[in-house]
């Protein structure tokens, strides 16, 4: 399925369909785009999804599994890892863990190109610290100023990319196999997203990010999210649209800006997503 000869990538896509419509057109667009860069295996944490919505995926995904486990995205990645098998997975140059919390707004070309140029074992688009409220600063300066082991610093798990050596390591194997059902999303974030980030640092694994800076709070959910797309992030989180964690003062105007910067092919998908996720009932046109 991959259109790029090298590197050989395996993409594990964790999905969850909240409504009765099944796999959304936005998910289809995202998976289709990801499939340009690797073999995409999806796991939807649902009891079932409408056959029609699966058909929308066409041949974009290499495989789609629909099975309820209730262990959130990390559970889906674990079950994909276990079902595909360690030997199969370790045959790839890179492993990507991603999910359907992302609304695609642009090509992933730049993201994957950036990644392919970097030698580090681990890559994520950005490092966040939800407790950080200072002026935007470079990650090196943040690391000098704070002890990241005692802060809420972590690589955002919406997109993790691991090179083969890291995938083969006992560190990763132990991590992925130890994922269990936990109480809620917060615990998932603390135990697995932050926990694995700290493990990487403890073990001295080389890491890199697309964005070299730390922004205040979690910029994927603040008004900054709408500007980060212009810094090279090809997606926006649905929860930024719904202002789930942070209020976005001028969100209607940021929506309009987003429609001007997104790839035209995704414009109607974004408009539909905005209408669906803007819980504030704004009169967006």
């Amino acid at each position, binding site marked *: 399925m991959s259109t790029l000869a090298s590197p050989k990538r395996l993409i594990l896509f964790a999905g969850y369909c909240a409504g009765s419509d099944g796999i959304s057109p936005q998910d289809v667009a995202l998976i289709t785009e990801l499939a340009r860069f690797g073999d995409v295996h999806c796991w939807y944490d649902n009891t079932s999804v409408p056959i029609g919505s699966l058909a929308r995926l066409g041949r974009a995904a290499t495989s789609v599994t629909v099975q309820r486990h209730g262990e959130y995205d990390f559970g889906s990645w674990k079950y994909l890892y276990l079902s595909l098998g360690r030997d199969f997975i370790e045959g790839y140059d890179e492993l990507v863990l991603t999910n359907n919390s992302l609304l695609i707004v642009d090509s992933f070309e730049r993201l994957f190109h950036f990644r392919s140029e970097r030698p580090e074992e681990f890559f994520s688009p950005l490092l966040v610290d939800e407790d950080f409220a200072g002026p935007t600063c*470079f990650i090196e300066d943040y690391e000098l100023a704070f002890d990241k082991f005692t802060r809420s610093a972590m690589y955002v798990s919406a997109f993790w990319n691991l090179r083969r050596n890291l995938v083969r390591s006992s560190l990763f194997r132990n991590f992925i196999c130890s994922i269990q059902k936990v109480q809620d999303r917060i615990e998932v974030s603390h135990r697995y997203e932050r926990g694995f980030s700290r493990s990487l640092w403890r073990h001295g694994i080389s890491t890199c990010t697309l964005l070299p800076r730390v922004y205040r709070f979690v910029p994927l959910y603040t008004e*900054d999210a709408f500007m980060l797309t212009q810094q090279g992030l090809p997606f926006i989180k649905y929860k930024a649209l719904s202002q789930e964690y942070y209020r976005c003062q001028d969100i209607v105007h940021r929506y309009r800006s987003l429609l001007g910067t997104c790839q035209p092919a995704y414009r109607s998908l974004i408009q539909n997503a905005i209408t669906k996720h803007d819980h504030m009932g704004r009169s967006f046109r």
Partner: protein
Amino acid sequence: MRPSDIRRIAPSLSGLWRNLNLLLNFDARWYAAAYQDVPGHRLSPLMHFVRYGLPERRSPSAWFNTAKFPETTVPRKFSEGHTTARSALAPLDVKAYSINYLRKLHASDDLLVFFNVTTKELSGGMLSIDRFANLALELTQDQPDAAVAVSGVPLDREPVHYSLFEPCLPMTHFAYIVKNTSPTRVRLFVPEVFADAFITMILANATYRHWLKERPRLGIVILNQNISLMPAPQPFVSRVTELTMDVMISTAHPRYCTGRLATEYGLPVKQLTPLLPDMPHRSWVNRKSVFMVSPDVLNDTQSGLTQDLVVERLKAAFPEFEFVVITKMKLQHYLDLASRVRFALTFGEGMDGYFIEPVLSGGVSFAVYNDVFFPPQFKDAPTVATNWPELLDLIEQMVPRLQADPELYDRISCELQDRLARTYSREISKSDLGGLLEGRVDHQPTAKARQPELFENLRIFLEAERGFRFHNGLPGDKQVVVAPDGLIVQHFGSEFYSVLYEIYERRDYDLNLDADTDYVLVDIGANVGMASLYLRNKYRNIREIYAYEPLIPVARVARENIVANVAEAPIHLKQVALSDRFEIATFQYFSDWTTAFSIDSRFLDSWLGSDEGGSRVASRSVEVEIVPADLELAEIVQNLGTRRLAIKCDTQGSEFAIFDALDASGQLSFVDVVVVETHFKRPDAIIETLTRNGFVVQARLDSEENCVYTVKAERPGSLV
């Protein structure tokens, strides 16, 4: 007046309004009577008020109580709300615009907005912005979707018709642009001095803010034409990036187009060389015996010279010349005059229009060099001196020769033009602006952690590699270091780490002492006493130390450090500054950078005040007693006996006066070893003094940027 004085008066737009109110109510007699440090001060009451009264929130007159006057007075129009001014409905004067221009503006998809000052006065900065707008028109003329507009700052003011020059475009109110255009891409060019207030007004005005946030591509360029007018990095950068992350700084002078500036602000930096006007060329014969003088204010505290005193002296020296001070002159009239005068003299930035334009037209200009505005090739230009007394001598010496020798005059002018052309030309400006519009930058910001000179990096190095133990956050916010040699020293952090690096790693103050001789060490500029303690620890034949630290809060800590590190040799701490004069005066200092305190602080004020990465604390005032170094040393020499003197001197500029005084009094003959850190100018004078007094001297350049040297001098035969 120093750049830092201007910044005190105009820290921001709202601050300017507040301070103008204070200045308009200033009563010199009342002020001098009310504040006991004013009578007898070297500064006039008004200048004293600007330099000390404003920061200390003193009242300017009996009838004006500063304490009850709001910190900032922002006109009501800036407060939250939608723009309803009549200017939102139309440009100032629709007739001023051609229909074609308005059509292009309304239909533009890529809009460049240059903000210029809504005043009818004329300044070089305004001309520069207008010329960039004109160049942008030229660069975008083949792009059907692109348009250029000139708008005004402050944003709430009505646009103005400039009467002293012909602008390339009439000024359009920003509200009109917001109401009538909907471009995909917008780039705003905002002059530095208005940048802070501009962002405040934009963020507070929902109409402007929404329009800008809706733009798919919004870029903001801060036009840094005078670095001393730049807003402090924080919170400015945090606020401007609420609008867009595409923010950059353009610099008018290559001197401050640096990676350091980019890193300080966390923003990319691009050189944008100002455009120079086209000038008619006239040689000596076609010029009149006129001396053109800039209208700037000079108050040279070193020499006591003012612009009036300078002009009076030149008038006396050259009675055949007419002296013309440029005031309220139309641009064309001014440029014509500049092309007809024989000589020009600027009291302003130095490398300014009053210097440049006469030269461009074939004339000869004089100025005092500074490394903020002049490109380095002017350092040894034939008509540029290092200080005002030297410049006056130079003018008095050169003008008669140039008057008598037209060929020499034209040759000097050509040389100045050649030096100008290395930095300024229309092609350079065009390339700079074209590059900026295409997204090119000269310096990207990097992590401060990657700056080797960063104090925090030094701290980490000293701790990790050299065994220092730093204990910060102790009760009372005390910071203490335990050095590898066992010294326990309280300090103020920040630059102290570089002091430790200089002492322990670079060994700047290590002395080559004769093992069979006992010494008395004179530590001039002792700060918290680190060097005194280190040297006493290291050299057991230093029997007594006299440490001089004029900053009382710092000396207090030094005293505690001396008490905490008991040793046989006593350290006598004296809380005075050494120089070549008696004086009690008030100075500024920064509590996080006490090692840079200087009683010769004119060099340091703007630099320190301009902030390092947004962390600079506010300056404080301190009264300092200055005494002549030779009188102070006379007492030490009297009790010297068979012992010899060693001097360590680090005083941020006063070292030249100190060694002049010691030389004149003959006291250098009692000295065996000298280590002195010199600042702000080459150490030639000190080297000459020491050599003449029989020392063998070595000098090392430590910082080219700040002209810092370490000079070590010893008696022949002992130098290692």
